[in-house]
């Protein structure tokens, strides 16, 4: 009798674990083709909690695709389509800074990367405002963050034909700890 109840408890635990992981997995694999309507997403992105004057509303756009594998894959494709690779190579850097290390001149949070893409940055990064739909910018943000292994390693973009650390990774380094890169002297930072 005692044994039976142990078996029952174990199987219940296994079943609930499977259920929990499958629910989490659904979100990771969720494919949202149609953001309706696209204009409904707020475009104000706040990169700091501080606000001048009286405190305004605290709502702001966040990355809706963080840790979504499909968005990451789409971001990977768009990274090529919009020629991000032209300056950043496939994350390794070229004319533009590398994206797979842990050195972020203008911040590494999704909001920072979003504003970098939308507004552009001095010394070369063009502004893509009005050129790329908001949803696609967030997909690019998701992919760019995956290059330096900043989002969950549970979601991966598809295999690339470019530089890879190990099969199936879009990232060059150990997903757990980003590789420390050479930090240029402060005077050379733009």
């Amino acid at each position, binding site marked *: 009798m005692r044994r039976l109840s142990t078996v029952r408890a174990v199987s219940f635990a296994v079943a609930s674990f499977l259920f929990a992981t499958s629910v989490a997995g659904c979100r990771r694999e969720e*494919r949202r*083709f*149609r*953001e309706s*309507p*696209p*204009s409904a997403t707020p475009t104000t992105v706040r990169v700091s909690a501080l606000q001048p004057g009286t405190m305004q509303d605290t709502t702001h756009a966040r990355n809706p695709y963080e840790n979504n594998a499909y968005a990451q894959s789409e971001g990977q*494709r768009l990274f090529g*389509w*919009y020629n991000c690779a032209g300056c950043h190579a496939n994350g390794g850097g070229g004319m533009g800074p590398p994206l797979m290390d842990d050195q972020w001149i203008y911040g590494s949070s999704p909001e920072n990367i979003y504003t970098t893409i939308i507004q552009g940055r001095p010394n070369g990064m063009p502004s893509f405002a*009005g*050129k*790329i*739909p908001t*949803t*696609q910018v967030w997909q690019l943000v998701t992919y760019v963050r995956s290059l330096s292994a900043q989002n969950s390693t549970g979601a991966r973009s598809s295999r690339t034909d470019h530089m890879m650390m190990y099969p199936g990774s879009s990232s060059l380094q150990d997903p757990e700890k980003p590789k420390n890169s050479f930090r240029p002297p402060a005077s050379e930072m733009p």
Partner: protein
Amino acid sequence: MLQDGLRGALNQSALEPAGPQAAKVTHLWWFALAIATTVYLLTMGALWWAAHRARQRELRGEAAVGPEAEQGMTRGVTYSIAATIVILLIFLVTDLSVGRTLSPVPSKHPLTIELTGHQWWWEVTYADTSPHGRFTTANEIHVPVGEPVLFVLQAQDVIHSFWVPNLAGKKDLIPGYTQSMWFQADTAGLYRGQCAEFCGLQHAKMALHVVAESKADYQRWVDQQRGTAAIPTDSAARRGREIFLTGTCAMCHSIEGTSAGSHAGPDLTHLASRRTIAAGTLPNTRGALGGWVVDPQRIKPGVRMPPNMLKPQDLDALLTYLQSLK
């Protein structure tokens, strides 16, 4: 009647050949059907006869198995194995001979078309010895009647398969590997083809049309396709052109004669001259085009084109411009 029932789509049937390639394939198909039907009827007849004879014997109270039955069994099995080998050899020989007669291109300098498969549309480039003679279009192939046309097949992302049933058999388009095939259209007409290798979400909506026309009509079409897009004269189309070039459209599409030169999406230089949009999904009308530009994800979920937020008057101007691209 039977053929009407079997036809899946208009102008798309392997049983109504319009060229020598498809005719051979159709003959092969009918031949295989005749042999298979004969074998099926003989097998079913023999089965019925065996069952009937056994039942008659049982009713007469005779023993089912005797020494002569054993001998008959050996003979029967030998005959059927021999027949199977002969029939398979006949199939093999016919198949090889059809393949051999069809593979070489019967012309020294055939019209060459480079066909590239994308998820989920067809890029069509007419090759020419001079760069000015080359031009690119999408999802619609024009060929002159009675002339062999050589296709150079490539794929951009995954494996696709080029299949126009009325004109030829299938051939795969493989990423990183160039294949070729040819066909010839003997009857003028419009033939529908589609991707015949599952290639992702919108595989079913990856169609193309082949327009076989007289030499003169074909030449007129080529001359028109080689031209660049003219700068429109009316104000609405000019505004549409500005929206196209400064907005999201120019990030993926190209129009010859403008600064839009990206090749991620189909070339739109002569969009208005095509019969369909979105790889044979919609007729090329103003309404369909408008619906497609604003919300392509509703029509082909998962398609690479994003929804576009445009003010009504901007959309109207853009459509006027796109429809002026004859």
